[in-house]
């Protein structure tokens, strides 16, 4: 793939743009459901669901699965603000591109403090880069998005950098 095809100016302007922080209070139910969705037909690790079991662990209580922070990553937009494929548009960090299809590329996650029930997780997103390459079937647009998660004690919880590929 060749590199460095120009991107629209409106898209270029979005590089460096940060979202308004969003905060969510985490419940035991949130953690349990996330754990069940990852576990498939098996029971999740009781560390995520069973207070008595979790109390005896080194964490001293229920914690969330390692990548639970993903459950806080979404855009607060109504259905009317979704494009045909269901992705949100017109958000603070929406990069305007001539595209209609999207797929998640790579992710790099750094982990800090585990998430626990009653934690308030604050998430901030940032557009780190936008670029375009010529693919076999047309132009491919790449948006690199970084999201940082902290808890109510100001501890670092997670940082994710992922690449959204669109055409």
């Amino acid at each position: 793939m060749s590199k460095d095809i120009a991107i629209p100016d409106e898209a270029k302007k979005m590089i460096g743009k940060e979202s308004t922080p969003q905060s969510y209070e985490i419940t035991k139910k949130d953690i349990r459901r996330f754990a069940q969705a990852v576990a498939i037909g098996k029971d999740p690790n009781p560390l995520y669901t069973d207070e008595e079991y979790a109390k005896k662990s080194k964490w001293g209580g229920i914690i969330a699965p390692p990548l639970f922070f993903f459950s806080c990553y979404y855009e607060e937009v109504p259905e009317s603000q979704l494009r045909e494929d269901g992705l949100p548009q017109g958000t603070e960090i929406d990069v305007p591109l001539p595209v209609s299809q999207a797929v998640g590329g790579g992710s790099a996650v750094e982990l800090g403090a585990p998430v626990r029930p009653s934690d308030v997780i604050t998430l901030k997103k940032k557009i780190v880069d936008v670029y375009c390459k010529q693919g076999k079937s047309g132009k491919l647009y790449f948006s690199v998005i970084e999201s940082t998660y902290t808890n109510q004690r100001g501890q670092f919880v997670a940082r994710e950098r992922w690449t959204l590929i669109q055409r």
Partner: protein
Amino acid sequence: MWLERGGPLSNAKMSNRIQITKVAPSFEELQVGSEISPITKEVTKVQIFMFSAVTWNRHRIHYDSDFAQTHDKLPNVLAQRPLLGSFLAQMLFDWVGEKGKIKRVEWSNRGPAVPDDILTCHGKIVKKCVIDGEHLVELEVWIENQRGEHIVPGKAEVIFSPSS
């Protein structure tokens, strides 16, 4: 499904059924080149839907097969990037347990993961070292499907607690 299998009421029996396989030995005993215990996931459409629900993901390619096929030319609804990453993280967490913590995990999606796929997560120790007092283990991780295709390559760093 959860209740049928015992659910929260039968915690006493739970320890026999959890998918915790061989846990990591101590940092000193870890061998570069050795593989950690793999885990297997049989992907279902319901599970992909459940994961979209818990992450409030409204991207149609994860729940609308017709749309996925006609609009995005995909074989079926796709397992989500964070779900595939969560499989890898589960493998690492099951392995390291209370002996340490996952510091980093990276993965990329090279091929589609769709319902009825049988995915196996693998990890191989590529390096171990002590940096600034941290007992660090670097792993190559990957997800392989039932055809042996490495659809998700990646890497990870796990920190072992000094006492382990």
